[in-house]
């Protein structure tokens, strides 16, 4: 059994990163030129890593499945990006940001990593500003901040409701500069289908050219995965329709441990499902909860129009249950409370799967103009999609799968258990423990790519300077390619009757019902059987029209759905193993009398890192014990 070594530097928390940088090995400029690095993904994590590595002088190959790197799903982030600048003079500090993330993550994240993420957050904002990202400013010409995600300080930088787009286009511009200089080669419309490991080290990837269908081999001295999250496991989610876990999963099968797979954040404020063919759920920014009040009717099945229901017949359930934080409780708490009301029969809309988010009082108090200036574009988007105006009647919202705290296990250097393979951004198990606070992902993804990975990867590559360029003729490449071809041929030759999407939709429903906002042993066991059965049906009845050597979107989807079954199975395994409730993971067996999540620190204060056992097709659990040296572990209460 491999022992997990998180490689956390010794010494006081605040000095660990400096100490690491002071002692890590460097690579001289002449050698950098001879070193190849593959970066898969062009979101905030991938594009920031690829451009920084290019600036440093490495030869970088950067991949994405979209037609342009600018379309990675980071582009869709709305609300903002955190940093501990304390520009508002409201008492913020690196320590406070660190503490909020540790607490928000329900004490299931690694102290040293989280502290470092908070430390580099300020550099991220400075860099974005310098490369022209148009963050909101005040009349003095300085950057503006808002409070986000229920914290006590205003540390969130934003660009209207388009923060992700603006940050991503900033990293896209740095990436373009390196492409211009010949340091980065961009490979769009290429999907990574396997990782190549040679003598125990990550040495390359196998990709499919999505236009021609050609299978390609790419080699490098190190491989970085920045392939995003797998919230699409629920089929309907706030992610892009093509977001998928396959790259991470392929790496997992080649030896990278997968950590806390069942930790998935369900965002409380998304537009509910409107039709059976719906392809995704659209997020309505968390910032709306600053002014909107969430309620359902007090009477079960009350079908009156929301505007006609008088105040005393409304149940403002978040304000009732959590008087201290009210509508601003963290995401996991808000989502579960909405589900509880809907399950009990108080939900609104035809499906009963929605709650009201009402701006009536805010408009009365502040005026329509003030509300428009804050949320105008969100209100418009809501109206475009639903046909009703939130100025006139409450929005209807429901929770949706949103962010995966789980992902590939990485050590302090962001290296997976496969030497030379790194995972950054949402694809790693990250700094968010069992629940992520708003505006902290953009911060972490950019921090990983711009300010952390470039240092840690040098420490590894310094030992590789004598390794010549890796040949793609090696047998490991050949074998990996053959495996990829076999799988594709298998999928295309089933010639059944159902589309890949129809299986994905069914899988999503199973996972949502049994491994979503609330989980119990019986349901999880049932889900496992259902997933297994569905997977069998998939391999019997899948229909992929067209051929291998052409643009074939059904083939792309089928390959991803095939991996979803396995990811789902591991999520269920992990959720079953963790019999406590923590953060977004709510085990019904472990709750307080008031129905709040109950942690079990004595037995579960660890990261669950799962190893894939190819011969036995089962997973082995490795535990990384979490030690809290700096913060006192408390019960997370928002009452």
């Amino acid at each position: 059994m491999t022992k997990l070594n998180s490689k956390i530097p010794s010494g006081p928390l605040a000095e660990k990163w400096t100490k690491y940088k002071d002692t890590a090995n460097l690579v001289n400029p002449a050698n950098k030129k001879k070193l190849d690095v593959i970066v898969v993904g062009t979101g905030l994590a991938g594009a920031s890593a690829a451009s920084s590595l290019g600036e440093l002088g490495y030869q970088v190959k950067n991949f994405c499945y979209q037609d342009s790197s600018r379309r990675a799903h980071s582009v869709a982030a709305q609300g903002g990006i955190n940093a501990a600048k304390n520009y508002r003079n409201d008492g913020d500090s690196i320590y406070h940001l660190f503490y909020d993330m540790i607490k928000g993550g329900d004490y299931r994240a690694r102290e040293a990593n989280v502290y470092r993420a908070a430390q580099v957050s300020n550099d991220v904002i400075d860099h974005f500003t310098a490369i022209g990202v148009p963050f909101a400013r005040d009349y003095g010409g300085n950057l503006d901040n808002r409070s986000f995600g229920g914290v006590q300080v205003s540390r969130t930088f934003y660009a209207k409701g388009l923060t992700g787009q603006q940050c991503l286009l900033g990293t896209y511009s740095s990436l373009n500069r390196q492409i211009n200089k010949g340091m980065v080669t961009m490979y769009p419309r290429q999907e990574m289908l396997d990782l190549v490991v040679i003598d125990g080290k990550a040495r390359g990837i196998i990709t499919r050219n999505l236009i021609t269908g050609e299978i390609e081999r790419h080699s490098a001295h190190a491989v970085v995965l920045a392939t995003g999250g797998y919230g699409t496991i629920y089929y309907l989610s706030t992610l892009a329709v093509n977001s998928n876990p396959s790259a991470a999963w392929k790496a997992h099968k080649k030896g990278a441990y997968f950590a806390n797979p069942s930790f998935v954040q369900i965002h409380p404020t998304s537009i509910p499902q409107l039709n059976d063919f719906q392809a995704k759920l659209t997020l309505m920014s968390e910032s709306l909860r600053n002014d909107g009040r969430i309620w359902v009717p007090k009477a079960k099945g009350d079908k009156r129009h929301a505007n006609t229901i008088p105040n005393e017949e409304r149940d403002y359930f978040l304000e009732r249950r959590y008087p201290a934080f009210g509508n601003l409780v963290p995401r996991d708490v808000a989502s579960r409370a909405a589900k509880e009301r809907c399950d009990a029969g108080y939900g609104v809309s035809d499906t009963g799967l929605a709650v009201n988010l009402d701006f009536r009082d805010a408009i009365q108090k502040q005026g329509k103009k003030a509300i428009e200036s804050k949320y105008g574009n969100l209100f418009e988007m809501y109206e475009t999609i639903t046909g009703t105006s939130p100025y006139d009647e409450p929005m209807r919202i429901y929770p949706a799968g949103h962010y995966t705290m789980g992902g590939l296990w990485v050590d302090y250097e962001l290296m997976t258990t496969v030497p030379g393979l790194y995972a950054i951004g949402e694809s790693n198990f990250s700094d968010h423990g069992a629940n992520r606070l708003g505006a902290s992902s953009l911060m972490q993804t950019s921090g990983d790519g711009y300010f952390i990975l470039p240092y840690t990867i040098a420490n590894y590559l310094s030992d590789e300077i004598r390794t010549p360029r890796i040949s793609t003729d090696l047998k490991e490449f050949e074998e990996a390619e053959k495996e990829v071809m076999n799988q594709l041929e298998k999928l295309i030759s089933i010639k059944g009757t159902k589309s890949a999407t129809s299986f994905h939709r069914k899988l999503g429903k199973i996972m949502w019902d049994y491994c979503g906002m609330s989980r119990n042993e019986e349901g999880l066991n049932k889900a496992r059987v259902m997933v297994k059965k569905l997977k069998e049906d998939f391999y019997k009845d899948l229909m992929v029209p067209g051929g291998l050597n052409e643009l074939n979107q059904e083939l792309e989807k089928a390959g991803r759905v095939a991996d979803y079954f396995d990811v789902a199975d591991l999520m269920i395994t992990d959720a079953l193993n963790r019999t406590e409730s923590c953060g977004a993971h709510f085990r019904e067996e472990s709750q307080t009398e008031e129905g709040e999540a109950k942690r079990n620190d004595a037995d579960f204060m660890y990261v669950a890192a799962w190893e894939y056992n190819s011969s036995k097709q089962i997973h082995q659990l490795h535990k990384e014990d979490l030690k809290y040296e700096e913060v006192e572990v408390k019960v997370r209460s928002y009452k």
Partner: protein
Amino acid sequence: MRVKLKIWRQKDANSKGAFVNYDFDGASPEMSFLEMLDALNTRLIEKGEDPIAFDSDCREGICGACGMYINGYPHGPVKGITTCHLSMRYFKDGQNIVVEPWRSKAFPVIRDLIVDRNSFDKIQVAGGFISTNVGSAPDSHAIPVIKEKSDHSFDSAICIGCGACVAACKNASAMLFVSAKVSQYAQIPQGKIEAKERVEAMIQKMDELGFGNCTNTGACEAQCPKEISVINIARMNREFYVAKIS
């Protein structure tokens, strides 16, 4: 609800394409236009036929992946939205709907409704950036920016790179796209240093890639899903002029 679709089908860049008719019964007003196509595709797949290929990813109007000509308009007949935000609410039962890919020499068709927009990236690679390396930035507040300028810079920066402006233009000009980037940087101090090189490099690349000239018809602004203003084009022309005389 039932719609009569006439959709451009083309196997690959080298094949000849043609319109194919689909009588589709099974749409509903809550569906998005792309969900309607998804539903049609499901039927095709179940019959073993090739589904209609089209690009989309975020399905929330921000990534710029989607885009098709619908009844003569890029992104369809509703102003200020992308194809993925177009709802079937805007169509009538029994309506004829013609769907085509973007038509422009600089955007060759790859398959069905998918076109190659790589030329947009090439223009950005030519100069759409500020040359500041990671690690060399001063504190953000060392560079104050007048709020109004910063807001205008933001307004230019919201381009999603979908290509509707080129598709809408009878000359297939990319002026709105290029000028949005040039303007974003022209209005803030960080962008001033390389202003001359940037505008020259981007315009040169644009010309090289076969985009047409701008004759001020304003079709680009009218069809832009993000309603980016043609003022950006005027600003870029000024930048270009200043670059030439300086």
